[in-house]
C-alpha cells in the first residue's frame, strides 16, 4: 500500500481519477461511449482525440525540461508548421492528393526540425539561457507564420488531410494513434538507448557529466530538435482540425499548458529526472479539465478562474510539503523520513 502511495505517479494519477469521477457524478453521460459506424464516440474519446497537440508538445517539453531548459517557442513552431502545410496544399493542383499531403507534411516537419535545431544551437553551442533563446523564436516564429500566409487565414479543402485530426482508424481517432505512437517512440528511444539516462545526468549536473565524458552539447541539442519536430506534428494536427492556417491562434499559449502538464506529471523544472508516463497523465489532467469546463457548463467568463482554481488544487494535492503538513495535522507522528547519511549502517573496515 505504502509502495503505491510512494510511487511518483500516484498523486498525478489520483488527480486524474478524481477529475473524471467528479465529471461522472455531475453528469453520468460523461462516461458514456457509443458506437456509430464502427467508431467510438463520447466525451472520454473526445479527450483522447483533442489531447493530441498538447500531448506532442508536452512530450518534447519534458525532454527539454529534463536538460534544465525550457522551450517557449513550441506554439510558434506549431503555427509555422501548420502554415507551411496548408500553404503547400492550398497552392497545389491536387489538394486532395496523397502525394501533395505527404509533401506538405514532410516539408512542415522539416521546417520544424530546423527551428528546433536553431533553438538547440542557441542554447547548447552559444550558451544562451533557454528561456531567452526560445523566446526569440516564440516571437519571430509567429511573425514568420504570418509572412507565409501573407497575413490571411488560409482555408483549404482537402478531405484526406482533414482525416488526420478528425478521422478514425478502426474504432479510435487517428489523432489518438498519432500521440500514442509518439509516446511509444519517445519512450523507447529514451529508455532503450542511453539517451534518457544521459539526458538526466546532463540536467542534474552538467559539469560532472562533461567531466565524465558525456557529450552534453549533442544531448541538449537533441532535446530541442525533438521538441521542435513534435511541435511540428502538433501543428499539423491542429491545422487539420481547423483546416485553416491561422498564424495567430494556432498553438496560442500551448507552451504554458505544456509546462503545466509536465509539472503536473511530476517532472521538476529544475531538470534531471523526468517521467514520460507522468507527462501523459499531466496532459490528460489538463485536457480533462478543459472538457470539464465545457461539460459542467461553466460560463466562458468564469472558466479561466475555474481552471486556475482546479490547477492550484491539483498542485497542492501533489505537494510533498502539503503531505507533511497533512500528516502532522492528522495525527501520525514523524514518519521515517529519508534516512540521511548518518543513519546508514557503516561497516567498519575489517
Amino acid at each position, binding site marked *: 500500500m505504502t509502495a503505491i502511495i510512494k510511487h511518483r505517479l500516484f498523486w498525478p494519477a489520483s488527480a486524474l481519477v478524481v477529475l473524471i469521477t467528479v465529471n461522472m457524478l455531475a453528469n453520468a453521460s460523461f462516461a458514456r461511449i457509443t458506437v456509430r459506424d464502427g467508431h467510438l464516440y463520447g466525451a472520454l474519446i473526445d479527450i483522447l482525440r483533442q489531447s493530441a497537440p498538447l500531448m506532442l508538445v508536452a512530450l518534447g517539453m519534458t525532454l527539454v525540461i529534463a536538460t534544465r531548459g525550457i522551450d517557449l517557442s513550441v506554439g510558434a513552431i506549431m503555427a509555422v508548421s501548420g502554415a507551411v502545410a496548408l500553404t503547400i496544399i492550398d497552392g497545389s493542383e491536387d489538394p486532395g492528393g496523397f502525394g501533395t499531403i505527404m509533401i506538405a507534411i514532410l516539408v512542415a516537419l522539416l521546417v520544424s526540425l530546423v527551428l528546433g535545431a536553431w533553438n538547440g544551437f542557441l542554447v547548447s553551442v552559444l550558451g544562451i539561457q533557454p528561456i531567452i533563446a526560445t523566446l526569440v523564436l516564440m516571437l519571430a516564429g509567429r511573425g514568420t507564420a504570418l509572412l507565409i500566409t501573407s497575413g490571411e487565414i488560409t482555408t483549404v479543402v482537402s478531405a484526406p488531410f482533414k482525416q488526420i485530426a478528425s478521422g478514425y482508424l478502426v474504432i479510435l481517432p487517428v489523432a489518438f494513434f498519432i500521440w500514442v505512437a509518439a509516446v511509444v517512440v519517445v519512450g523507447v528511444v529514451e529508455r*532503450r*538507448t*542511453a*539517451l534518457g*539516462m*544521459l539526458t*538526466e*545526468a546532463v540536467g*542534474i*549536473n552538467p*559539469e*560532472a*557529466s*562533461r*567531466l*565524465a*565524458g*558525456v*557529450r552534453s552539447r*549533442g*544531448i541538449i541539442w537533441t532535446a530541442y530538435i525533438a521538441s521542435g519536430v513534435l511541435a511540428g506534428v502538433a501543428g499539423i494536427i491542429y491545422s487539420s482540425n481547423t483546416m485553416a492556417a491561422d498564424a495567430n491562434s494556432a498553438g496560442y499559449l500551448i507552451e504554458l499548458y505544456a509546462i503545466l502538464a509536465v509539472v503536473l506529471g511530476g517532472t521538476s523544472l529544475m531538470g*534531471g*529526472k523526468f517521467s514520460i508516463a507522468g507527462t501523459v497523465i499531466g496532459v490528460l489532467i489538463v485536457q480533462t479539465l478543459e472538457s470539464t469546463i465545457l461539460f459542467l457548463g461553466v460560463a466562458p467568463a468564469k472558466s479561466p478562474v475555474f481552471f486556475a482554481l482546479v490547477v492550484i488544487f491539483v498542485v497542492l494535492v501533489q505537494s510533498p510539503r502539503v503531505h507533511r503538513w497533512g500528516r502532522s495535522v492528522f495525527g501520525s507522528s*514523524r514518519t*521515517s*523520513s*529519508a*534516512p*540521511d*547519511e*548518518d*543513519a*546508514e*549502517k*557503516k*561497516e*567498519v*573496515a*575489517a
Partner: protein
Amino acid sequence: MTRNNHPMGQPTPLVEMEHATVRFGTTLALDDVALRLYPGEVHSLMGENGAGKSTLIKALTGALRLDAGTLTIDGTAMRFATPYDAQRHGISAVYQEINLLPNLSVAENIRLGREHRSHGLISPRRMEREAAVVLSELGLSVDPHSPLGSHPVAVQQLVAIARAISTDVRVLVLDEPTSSLDSDEVAELFRVIRDLKERGVAILFISHFLDQVYEISDRITVLRDGALVGEYLPTDLLRIELMQKMLGHDAPELLSRPRPASAAVPAEPYLKGRGVTSSLGICDADVDLAEGEVLGVAGLLGSGRTALARALTGIDALDRGELSIDGRPVRFASPRAAMKHRVAYSSENRRTEGIVGDLSVLDNITLALQAQRGVFRKIPPARQRELAASWAEALRIRPSDLDRPVRTLSGGNQQKVMLARLLALSPRVLVLDEPTRGIDVGAKVEVQNLVADLATNGLSVVFISAELEEVLRVSDRVAVLRDERVVDTLESATLTVDAVLALVASPETTEEGE
C-alpha cells in the same frame, strides 16, 4: 563509558545533551549520547562517517528533533523546531558544503535575513559597512561588494563563518571547516576560533585532520556507530588511541606504507608531459609517469595542483606543451578524448564536478563507460547491474543498494562511487584530485590502499592532496609545485614532510630552474 570530569572547573555547561536518541525507521542514528559544551572551549566531535556526528549536530541546531533525550541550554530544557529557532538561542553552524548564495555579494551573504531595514527598505551601504566590520574581525581582506562566487572556496568558507559570527553566537558548530583551506588559512581560522573562545563562545569542531584537532581542542568526544565512546582530554589520548576508538579496532595499517617503494622506476614513462602550460594556472610543467607508478603532487592551494591535473586530462586546453602516451604524441580536446586514451580524472569538487546527485549509484558508476560507448550502444541493464555491483563490492561501497540516489551516500562512499566510475573504463592513467578530501579516516585509508593496489596492478596514478603525509604515504615520487611551476620531483621514500614543506613554502631553500 569513560568520562573525565571537566578540567577547568567551570560549574555549568552552556549546552548539555543527555540520552540523545534519534531513529530513522529501524536504524538508531544516535543512541543515548551525551554531550556537554562549556563556554569558552573548543570541543572536537570525532567519529567515522556514519558515527552519528551529523545527526548530533542536526539535533543540536534544530534541523532534526530528538526522539528521546534532552537538550538543555543554560539549564533550560529546549526543543528547537527549526535551525532559525536554534540561531535565536545563539547556536549557529557552518557546514562542510557551503550553503551560501554565490550570486549575491559577500555583504549580502553575511547579513542576509538579518538586514537592517529602514522603512522596510534595505540599505546596501549600511549592510556593506556591517559586513566589513565582521570581515575585518576575521582579518579577511575581501571586498564586501564583490559576488561571493567570485572568490575561492577557502574565502567562501571564511565568509560562511563570518556570517555565523555576525549573529550573537554562543555556540558555533564548525563542520569540517578546514577541508578546503590551506595551511595559512587554517592558521587564520584558528586565530579567529581562539578569539571567539576568549569571548566565551563554545565551539564544536569537527575535522578529519588529526593535527588540527589536537592543536585546537580542549576536549574530544568520540562517537562510533551512533553511540558515545567517551569524552577525553587531548593530552590524555594518543592519536593512535583516538583512531582506534573511532574505528573500534586496532589499526596497524594506519601507520604503515600501503606498499613498498617500488624498487626501480621503469626508464620509459608511460605518460609524458613536456612544458605543459595552461592559462588556468600551470606553467612549463614536465611530468613523467611510469606504468604502475604513483606520482604524488604536493603544493599549496593555488600552486597549480588542480590546473596541472586538468591540463593532463583534457579538461582545460593546453596553451603550450606536449603530451605523449607510450611515446606517441597525443592531444586531448576534451575529457572524453582523454578517456578514449584511457586517461581519467576525478575532480576535487565531488559535489559540483563529481557525482550526479539525483541519479542512482548504478547510473553514476556506469556513466563514464556509457558516455564512452555513446547514446546508442546502451549497456544492457543486466550487464550494468553486474558491473556496478562488482565495483561496489570491490570498493566496499556502503550501503550496497545500487538504486539509491548517490547524494544520500556519505562523502567517503561518494568518493568510492567516483573511483568506480573511472575504474569501469579500465583506465591506464588515473588523475585523482583530492580523492580523500572531507572523508573520514577509515574511508581515507581505504582509498589510499586502493590506490596502492591499483598501482601494483600496473595502473599509473597521479595523486593530488593537500595533506603531505598522505602524499608521501601513497606515492613513489612527489612532484612539488609552487607558483604554478613544478619545483622539483623527488623520490618519496627518502622524503620527510618537513623537507617537502620547505620546498613548498620558500623559494630560498632550493635552487630553482636548474
